[in-house]
Every structure is written in structure tokens, then in C-alpha cells.
């Protein structure tokens, strides 16, 4: 399998300034991203996700370490790399003063797409991202979801084989987020390699072939989704539905290292006299893995990001 990205000992230390001490944002990470896969890069705020993307896309220079991207050396051939990648930053950053189609055409002009192809390619992208009706609308006047979609379309304008998506669905409503996820899945089906960071663990679980989890600048786990789940399977997890005398129901999860029976016994012991309506054994999900590895839970991570937004994965 070809590796599109190979990072070796990639490190970024931001020097001290008047507001802070030196910050080791990324601390010697090694990983590879295979051709055609969706690679998820997860971690809490400040873990080093965005700094890693900024290094890999040539926006900031690594303090040490190396990387090869699309067979180019990151330190020597950053401009060649830029020509072959698409980047969707966390904030939609096209030009408010240009229309949807003009933004796409400008992206193509910067990347050297031949003049005769630009308009047609822009129309195709607008159609694909369901923005044809907005082709002559200023970017400033699009809804947040449309801005996000257009920003992704602009990143694809020069047909890059590798796309970096930094929190693509953050802040979107459920329908827009769902639509974007379908688009991302569609890109993978076309063979585009995707490097995805997200706070939404269900989104990562659904979209990603492999996932790296970064905490405090270091990768603490890297595997397929199933592989990560298997690593968390050592603990039995049961979900118990309890009801009090007023019929008020509550679902509680219990984890136990000593197997399902012990977990059920623990659940019963902590039911405080409430009726047990149901007991379900649960397979660990990505959230369980994440909690184990980071000590954070998904809600904390979403709260850091300002709410659930597009977190309700629905398709």
C-alpha cells in the first residue's frame, strides 16, 4: 500500500514570547497515511492536531523531524506539495466580496488550472455541492453550511489527490453536517486521500478507515476503528435502564474489568432501589477508546468546541 504521508519525528516547538513559555505543540510524532483512505486525527483541544496539519501543509516549519508527502520532501519541496494538496481550514475563509463561482475560479487561477477548464469545472463543483442556485451570490451572503461546502469545493478545485479537512462539520446544523459527511464519503469513493480532524467521535467512527489519537502532542494510539475498539474490549460495559417510583427513567453505563457479570452486579448494587427495566451489554465504541486514552469524555471535548453542532451523526 502506498503511503501518501509519512511523518517521522515531526516536532513543533513554538518559542516563548511575552505571553507564554515555549510550547511543545507536537512532540516527535510518527505516522503514515495510506493512499485512498480517510485518516482521522483525533484529540482534545490543544493536543496538536491543527499544528500537525499546518506543518504538513507547509504553513509552519517543523522544529525537527521530517515528512514525505506525495513523495515530496516537506522541508525541501513545500511548494510542490502545495500544488497537489487541498486544505479546508477550520474556519471557512473564502472571500466575502466574491461570488461563489468567482471564489472557485480564483482558486483554480492560483493553482494553474487551464483557463478553458475553469468555468466548466466550477459549475461541476457547484452542482456537486448543491450550490448551483447560489453561483452568483456573494460568499458573505451564504449560510454557514453553504460556506463550508463552498470552502471544501474550493479545496477540490484543482483536483488534489490529498485533502486536509480540519473540523469540517464544526458549528453546522444536523442536515448540513450530514450532507457534508456524504460528500466526504463520496470523495473517498473517488480515491481521494483524506486527512480529517474532528471533535465528533461518531463522525470519525463512521468515516475513517484508520484513526490516530493525539494527546499533548504525542500520538497515543493509531489503528483501524475496529482495532482501536478491540484494544478497549478488555473492559465489560453494560448499560442499565433504571426507573424510580414515579416512572422516571435513566440510562447508566457501568464498566468493569472482571467481565459482564461483575458489571451487572455493580449496576444492581448502585441502582438505589430503583427498578431495573433493561440490561444491555455494550461493545466499546470509539468514545470508550477515546476516554480510556485521553481521560476526557466526548462531552468535554464538544463543550471545548462550543457545543454539539453537527455532532448528531445521521447519515
Amino acid at each position, binding site marked *: 500500500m502506498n503511503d501518501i504521508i509519512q511523518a517521522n519525528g515531526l516536532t513543533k516547538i513554538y518559542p516563548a514570547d511575552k505571553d507564554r513559555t515555549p510550547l511543545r505543540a507536537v512532540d516527535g510524532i510518527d505516522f503514515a497515511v495510506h493512499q485512498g483512505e480517510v485518516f482521522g486525527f483525533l484529540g482534545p483541544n490543544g493536543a496538536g492536531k491543527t499544528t500537525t496539519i499546518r506543518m504538513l501543509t507547509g504553513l509552519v516549519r517543523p522544529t525537527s523531524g521530517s515528512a514525505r508527502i506525495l513523495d515530496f520532501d516537506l522541508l525541501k519541496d513545500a511548494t510542490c506539495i502545495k500544488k497537489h494538496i487541498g486544505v479546508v481550514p477550520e474556519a471557512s475563509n473564502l*472571500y466575502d466580496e466574491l461570488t461563489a463561482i468567482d471564489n472557485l475560479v480564483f482558486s483554480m487561477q492560483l493553482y*494553474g488550472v487551464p483557463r478553458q477548464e475553469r468555468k466548466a469545472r466550477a459549475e461541476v463543483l457547484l452542482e456537486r455541492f448543491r450550490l448551483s442556485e447560489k453561483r452568483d451570490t456573494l460568499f458573505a451572503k451564504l449560510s454557514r453550511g453553504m460556506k463550508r461546502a463552498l470552502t471544501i469545493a474550493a479545496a477540490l478545485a484543482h483536483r488534489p489527490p490529498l485533502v486536509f479537512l480540519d473540523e469540517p462539520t464544526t458549528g453546522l446544523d444536523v442536515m448540513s453536517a450530514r450532507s457534508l459527511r456524504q460528500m466526504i464519503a463520496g470523495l473517498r469513493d473517488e480515491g481521494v486521500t483524506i486527512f480529517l480532524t474532528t471533535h465528533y467521535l461518531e463522525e470519525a467512527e463512521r468515516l475513517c478507515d484508520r484513526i490516530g489519537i493525539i494527546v499533548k502532542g504525542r500520538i497515543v494510539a493509531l489503528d483501524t476503528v475496529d482495532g482501536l475498539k478491540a484494544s478497549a474490549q478488555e473492559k465489560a460495559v453494560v448499560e442499565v435502564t433504571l426507573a424510580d417510583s414515579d416512572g422516571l427513567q435513566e440510562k447508566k453505563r457501568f464498566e468493569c474489568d472482571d467481565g459482564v457479570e461483575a458489571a451487572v452486579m455493580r449496576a444492581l448494587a448502585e441502582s438505589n432501589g430503583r427498578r431495573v427495566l433493561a440490561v444491555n451489554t455494550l461493545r466499546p465504541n470509539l468514545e470508550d477508546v477515546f476516554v480510556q486514552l485521553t481521560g476526557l469524555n466526548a462531552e468535554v471535548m464538544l463543550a471545548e468546541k462550543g457545543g454539539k453542532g453537527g455532532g448528531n451523526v445521521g447519515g
Partner: protein
Amino acid sequence: MLADNLRGMFYIALKDLRAYYFKAPNISWGILFPFAFVLAFAIRNPGETRDLVPGLLGLTILFATSSMEAIVIVFERRIGSLERLMLAPISLPALLGGKMLGGIAFGLTVTSVVLAVALAVFGVAGVNWLLLILALLLSASAFSAMGAFVSVAVREVFEAQTLANFIRFPMMFLGGVFVPLVAMPPSLQMVARLLPLTYTVEALRAAFSGGTWAVALVDLAALAVFTVILFALAVRVLARRSG
């Protein structure tokens, strides 16, 4: 690589002209502001109006070129769209070159309107056209580089406006626009020699009054040096800021 950089510069300039420069407030500000100053001076000193044309053109190209230029980069950095350009397959000097090119094109466009009015009023006799064109081109480059430097040196749009005015307003009064350099005290003359507008006004004066090429060439060379130094500083600061 060179072709990528040249193409990038051209399209960045074109985009900036469409998105930011060719808006009614910019055009009216670029033309009215210098006219207002010169008109005030002309009313106070009637009879010397033709002598004010080089200064009027100098002020126009200074303000038309640098006003938006000083804001554009810091504005785009604030909203994140500068990052799009930094991700494009072009070098940092090409990116800044594109930004400068937009300022130069706008400055020359606005100045050509003012120039047309001045020539219509005062006539074209005795104008050294080659010197005039070179003086305008190099002045636009120097002021655009100055605008780019101001824009990368600050973090907020209001800081850019403050810094740009902090530089431009003293330059306006010390650059020989209203008072000839020889009429200034020696200490102020030394300060004036550090300001690009001084060389702009001198070169334009030579172009309008048949001055010698020898003096004008020094002015043109000084403007070229200002351009190179300010552009190099802008590239350096932007590179350091972008990590």
C-alpha cells in the same frame, strides 16, 4: 516555478482590485483627498497653482496606493483568507508581490485621472513623458511596498491605519509638496531626505519643468531603493509571523 509565481501575482492583484480597491469610497477618497489639500493651499496662495501639480500627483499616488494596501493584508489575516494564499503553490515574495501589484495598479489608475485633469487645466507643454511615467511607476512601487510593510507589521486593521497615517502625514508636510525643500531648515531637509515622497515630488517636478535627468535619476534610484528595502522587510516580517 517562476511561471507559477508570476501567475499567482497577477491573479492575486486582480482579485484584490475586484474585491477591495475598485469601490466607490476608495476611488473618491483617492481623488478628493489630495484635491482638497491642494485646493486649500491654492486658495491661500493664488498664482502658484501650476507649481502644485507635482505635489498633487505625489499626494494622490501616495494615498491611492498605500491606503488600501496597508489594510488588505492585515484584514485578510484577521479573517483567515491570507492563509489561502499562503497555501497556494507560490513563494512568499510572489504573494506579497501580488498584493503590491494590486496597490500599484489602483494607485496608477487613480493618479492618471488626476493627471488628466491637471494636464487639461495646465496644458502638456514641456512635460518629459518618460520621466513622468518612470517617476509614477517607481513611486507607486515604493508606496505600495510601504503599505505592504505596514500591513504585515501590525495585527489589527486600526493599527495599520494608525501606523500608515503616522508615516504619511509627516511625509505630506516634509516631502516638498507644499513647501520646497530649499525653504526648510537644514535639519528638516535631512529628515525629508529619508522620505520617499520627497523623491517623488522632485522627480515629478523635473518631469513637468524640464529639469535635468541627472537629478531625476538620483530620485528614481532612491525610489527603487525604497521599494527594494520596504519589500524585503515586508517579506521578512511576514515569513517570521507565519512561523
